[in-house]
């Protein structure tokens, strides 16, 4: 079966994809654009699930790669837009460059004028960055809380850099007004197609033998090292793949949203991503759809109804889910289904054993 899904599950997945694909016909442009952005968050969540849910690396800096991919695309579109709309910006260079005293686009930024160069370059650059970062971190056996702190610092540094070098990044205001692909049904479908592809890819990775080794690293990396696995290599690989997925998601996000700022690269989005995965269910992949769509959807609907109270409702929702469903929504459902099946086959013990949380650090 495709990507290790049973016939029943494959049918379910196809129905969901069909519903998402048909959405522009009944949802209207506004909701379609929103859903497109949510799908970009889904891809971010999928990449986080690979590294956190399956491998046990808690990264609080995954937005760096999302934001990085987004900045490459936004910059490219902006350069193009400014060059082709000189009436608006007399000199044909982006407004923020002009405000900061530049008279022409810096030479090293010129290649970005082509989106066909900029978009792949952004993804590759983020892959390279993740590889170097992963190499330094994982080869030195930095794990658990220390790894989380380092990735958080990475995120803070990049946010600061974006704000600081405003002549080249748009600074605090970000990059705006570059035209976008919003209300474009074809572009929405492209986003959906990429999301489906990433889901398939993540399924492929996690259901392979490699995926099982990733999970063994999550469960106890010391045990895996003594079984001959060079744990750092597995982490570097999955961290790099996840970063490139995030970068693609960020690029699509920038093109759809039409505005991008330091928040998309900073700790805020990084941590939001972690919350989405936790609420949806770590290590389930499906949870990466449920988490962001539920939370961002609720945020959006509630904020339309309640002027300021909506934040409280969303906060309350987090707390309720984390307290009553520590495995997340999908994780809890799957665990129950597994137990039912085990009971039906007469395998499960009469008592429910305590839920074992994946250890952040080796226990022995």
């Amino acid at each position, binding site marked *: 079966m495709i990507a290790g899904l049973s016939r029943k599950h494959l049918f379910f997945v196809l129905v969901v994809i069909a519903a998402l694909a048909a959405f522009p016909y009944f949802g209207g442009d506004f909701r379609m654009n929103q859903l497109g952005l949510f799908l970009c968050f889904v891809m971010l969540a999928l990449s986080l699930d690979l590294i956190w849910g399956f491998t046990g690396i808690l990264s609080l800096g995954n937005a760096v790669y999302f934001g990085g991919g987004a900045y490459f695309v936004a910059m490219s579109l902006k350069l193009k837009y400014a060059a082709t709309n000189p009436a608006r910006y007399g000199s044909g260079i982006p407004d923020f460059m002009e405000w900061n005293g530049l008279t022409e686009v810096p030479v090293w930024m010129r290649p970005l004028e082509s989106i066909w160069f900029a978009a792949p370059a952004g993804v590759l650059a983020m892959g390279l960055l993740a590889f170097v970062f992963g190499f330094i971190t994982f080869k030195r056996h930095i794990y658990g809380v220390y790894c989380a702190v380092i990735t958080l610092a990475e995120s803070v540094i990049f946010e600061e850099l974006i704000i600081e070098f405003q002549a080249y990044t748009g600074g605090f205001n970000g990059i705006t007004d570059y035209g976008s692909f919003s209300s474009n049904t074809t572009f929405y479908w492209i986003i959906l197609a990429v999301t489906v592809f990433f889901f398939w890819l993540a399924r492929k*990775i996690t259901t*392979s*033998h*490699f995926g*099982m*080794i990733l*999970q*063994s690293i*999550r*469960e*106890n990396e*010391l*045990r*895996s*090292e*003594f*079984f*001959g*696995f*060079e*744990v750092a*290599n*597995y982490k570097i*690989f999955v961290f790099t793949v996840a970063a490139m997925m995030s970068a693609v998601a960020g690029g699509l996000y920038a093109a759809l949203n039409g505005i991008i700022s330091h928040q998309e690269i900073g700790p805020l989005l990084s941590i939001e991503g972690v919350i989405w995965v936790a609420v949806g269910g770590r290590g389930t992949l499906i949870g990466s759809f449920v988490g962001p769509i539920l939370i961002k959807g609720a945020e959006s609907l509630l904020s339309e109804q309640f002027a300021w109270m909506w934040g409280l409702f969303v906060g309350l929702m987090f707390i309720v889910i984390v307290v009553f469903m520590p495995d997340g929504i999908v994780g809890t459902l799957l665990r129950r289904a*597994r137990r039912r099946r*085990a009971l039906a*086959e007469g*395998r*499960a*013990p009469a008592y429910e*054993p*305590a839920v*074992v949380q*994946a250890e952040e650090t080796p*226990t*022995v």
Partner: protein
Amino acid sequence: MASYILEVRDLVNTVSGHTIIDHLEFDIEEGELRVLVGPNGAGKTTLIEIITGRYRPTQGQILFQGQRIDGRPRHEIYRLGISRKFQVPTVYDNLTVFENLSVALRGHRQVFSSLFYRIDARGAGQIEAVLAQINLLHRAKDEAYTLSHGEKQWLEIGMVVASDPRLMLLDEPTTGMTREETDKTARLIREIARTRSVMVVEHDMSFVRQIANRITVLHQGQKLAEGSVREIENNPRVAEVYLGRTKISAAP
């Protein structure tokens, strides 16, 4: 002269001024089943940690089949042929029993080879053989966290078997087991030891008597005595370090 699978030469390990292993000389012959005993703090587990690459020795050498392995990375030491069981049973709690064994199964340790590897009929057959050996065939589909303590011990021993080493280091394989489970484990270890070298660290003397040909007694990081079960049990110095008892068989 018998050929040695493991040679420990003048090994010293000090941790913040305390000497844990003190100029230890120690050998295991090819194909041997050796039991290591000694009171708490004798350095038994530390010795395993140094052999498998968790700690570096302060001084001295460790040779595996004549080749120096001290200070080498853990995964390389496994690949040369040494696999170990932890003192506290250490399995992958949220993976099924079958999956636990398939991770441990020999082969496919590289990132790219594991990406495209699927367990074939031969691999599955090997896992089932191990499952039968450790009496966990009926639990194959269950997550490891649902196992009892004794079953986890067996699972980890099974994982070490599946990883197919030349030398197996088993740290306290019967801790927390009932008498009956301990007897089963003794049979299991004797069976395993027919085809490879095994070193077992254990406290339980009745268990030791069931499996051992040759015992090494460690005390304060040094080799106190070495010999057959009979020799060790009648050794007055050994009896002395076991809290002045007349026979170590009375030890816990």
